[in-house]
């Protein structure tokens, strides 16, 4: 349908848009800037913000969200979604607690079994989505209920809380000489792993290709289904790791642990600039978004804003993150008087 010219017209300079526009245009930059502004303003105006203790709390709260947000970013980049993560956390907590209750006392074994369980739960999602070809949104709403339900089956309304104090203390222990929890290092290492995977490996390249056009990816020799399957497995395992951390941080395994966390994770990933339709976004923005939400929430709490009302901030940021760029783009297009072809809503695969 397009006519051909051998020379692409209308591009005079070889250089792209000016550097400031490119930087400003990048959502990552906007988020990092917002993060800095929030930190500076809050530190200056709210007592207690900026203290090491403050960041310790922010970190402890953000770790589970960030752990799950890492693989979730990759999943959403391929155009899928996993809403069952919080239930995976809950079920892992329950099984971990029950195993301890039944006399499994080896910490490495407990952790290993938990991660294995998470991977299996992720694989179940993966099988439904890639083998049976069902939409991930519907499947993971189903497993959201199923996994949480199994957590209740395992633990009922009991809470298992009698872990050795060293375990629970070690979970939140600071890096020697600081107050920052050492688990942040684990998170950082995993963030590097996922970052390298996404930005600097053939797999990362294929994730963006899949998210933009799964059919063309298949024609280019990418194993679309296999890739997606393993992403769901990874998501399950990471959610299980978050579950282990959750159990020991709160010294409590309950079936309702981390209820509703999936929405917090998805909100952070989307705010981080990842397109819900797949193909766009990255980990830098997502990590910035997790930090921004965590700091904002804790800072406003210190400023005596009622905790629950803070959800307004989360929601508004989330909406702005998608509406803002769209309105800017639409205004710019109108300015150029160039009407696009009817906007194609991506059809779900």
């Amino acid at each position: 349908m397009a006519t051909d010219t051998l020379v692409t017209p209308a591009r005079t300079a070889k250089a792209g848009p000016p550097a400031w526009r490119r930087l400003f245009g990048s959502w990552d930059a906007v988020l990092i800037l917002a993060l800095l502004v929030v930190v500076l303003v809050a530190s200056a105006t709210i007592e207690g913000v900026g203290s090491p203790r403050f960041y310790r709390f922010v970190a402890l709260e953000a770790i589970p969200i960030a752990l799950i947000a890492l693989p979730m970013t990759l999943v959403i980049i391929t155009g899928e979604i996993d809403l069952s993560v919080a239930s995976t956390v809950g079920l892992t907590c329950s099984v971990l607690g029950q195993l301890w209750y039944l006399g499994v006392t080896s910490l490495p074994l407990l952790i290993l079994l938990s991660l294995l369980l998470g991977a299996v739960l992720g694989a179940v999602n993966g099988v439904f989505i890639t083998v049976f070809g069902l939409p991930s949104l519907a499947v993971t709403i189903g497993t959201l209920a199923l996994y949480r339900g199994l957590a209740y089956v395992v633990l009922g309304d009991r809470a298992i809380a009698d872990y050795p104090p060293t375990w629970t203390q070690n979970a939140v222990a600071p890096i020697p000489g600081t107050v920052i929890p050492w688990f942040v290092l684990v998170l950082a290492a995993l963030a590097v792993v996922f970052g390298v995977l996404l930005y600097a490996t053939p797999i990362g390249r294929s994730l963006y290709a899949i998210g933009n056009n799964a059919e063309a990816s298949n024609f280019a020799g990418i194993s679309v289904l296999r890739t997606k399957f393993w992403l769901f497995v990874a998501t399950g395992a990471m959610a299980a790791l978050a579950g282990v951390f959750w159990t020991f941080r709160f010294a409590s395994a309950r079936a309702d642990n981390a209820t509703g966390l999936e929405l917090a994770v998805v909100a952070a990933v989307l705010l981080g600039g990842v397109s819900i339709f797949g193909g766009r976004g990255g980990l830098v923005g997502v990590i910035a978004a997790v930090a921004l939400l965590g700091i904002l929430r804790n800072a406003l709490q210190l400023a005596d804003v009622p905790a629950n009302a803070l959800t307004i901030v989360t929601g508004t940021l989330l909406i702005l993150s998608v509406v803002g760029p769209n309105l800017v783009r639409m205004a710019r297009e109108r300015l150029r008087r160039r009407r696009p072809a009817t906007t194609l809503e991506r059809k779900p695969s």
Partner: protein
Amino acid sequence: MLPVLALEGVDKSFGAVAALRDARLELYAGEAHALVGENGAGKSTLVKILAGVHGPDTGSVLLDGQPVAFGSPADARAAGIAVIYQEPTLFPDLSVAENIFMGRQPLKGLRRIDAAAMRERTNELFARLGVRIDPDRPARGLSIADQQLVEIAKALSFDARVLVMDEPTAALSGVEVDRLFAVARSLRDNGAAILFISHRFDEVFSLCQRVTVMRDGRWIATDEIGNLTVDGVVRTMVGRDISALFPKMATEPGEVRLQVDGLTRHGYFDDVSFTVRGGEIVALAGLVGAGRSEVARAIFGVDRYDAGQVRVDGRPLRPGAPPAAIDAGLALVPEDRRQQGLVMELSIERNATLPRRWALSRLGLLFGGGERRSAAEWAKRLQVKAARNTDPVSTLSGGNQQKVVLAKWLSTAPRVLMIDEPTRGIDVGTKSEVHRLLSQLASEGVAVLMVSSELPEVLGMADRVLVMHEGRLVADIPRDQADEESVMFAATGQRGAAA
């Protein structure tokens, strides 16, 4: 007399691509007007402007001599313009009758939809077209031909003053085409204006009174059909001598590179066997829907097949696994560039290196340098015209996009290149570049399997022509015996005349 509908000096660009430049058209009541031009000449864009899908950048649309601005397809429809698109636009979940009357369903009391009346009128429309489709069945699962017939019924259902038909006959059988033309003639005689877009000159000459030729988005000529010959129209469309287009050099065929034995996919193709040697260009010809693309896709592993075997250089190829096919030295340049060949949102660089992402990585890591160099090298070799290799391929023209697809696959150094409709939707200049490239690849010993619906391309490029008819391979015609007649005869299933 004023034209019912006219375009004056219309320009339309999509990003960097100028689709229409100074396009003109005048449609009068009671005439059937043909719009012809090569793929990519801007016909479909023109149709979408008439239909209110796109607005013109400059220039104007005149309805009864008055400038109008269609803000949406609804506006154009309200003005009495009915469009049958090339690709059917049906709602798969809704019934056939609802598809036809969506938004205009007959009503009864309390403004309720009168389902019985709707079914009745649908049956009337189908009777006029002489087809039997159950109005109550969902559109999902209809054959392409039936979908097209539903589209035609839809256009007939509101008594349009202007009926635009964008290649409506591509999937229809002879009988169905005859019926469609009878309906179109009666509409025309009742004072409607018909704009007919087709690549089939026999149809154009039998239906239309005037012809407008477009090339590269421009208006070239409009004339009475009586003053024209097929050859003259083709020359005007192409804008140069045709014989200069196909530079296939004679080569000595080498070893068998690709061997296909008894390949079968139920419902698509059956017991297909052939070989392609190194240095050969083998064309796979046939009617639309004969199963040619499906065979290529199955060989490459994008689709599964039910029986048969594919061997590359004598080694059996694992079915259903494109990565294995690539490793074995196969490459497939697919039919649909925008949907299958490229990831439109990604850069030239990423697209051009996607199949080689593992080969370009070191210790499993990719830092961009290798991709950049590889893409730059191939972009230069194939003369891809782009501002930067980091631009999304969506900003390129069709011809340059096709070059990126070629770069993507040639960089894998394939031993067997399958190329589906190699020059669809690209301009004449790039076309001959692509042909020269294929010829050069063959001379370097690559086995080329070319699926093409353009007969001159098939006859000009191929060492052998394989012809498919209804999912079966019906003829294998060597170059010196291949002509329009022999290929057509085989393609339409008239076995006796073929080789």
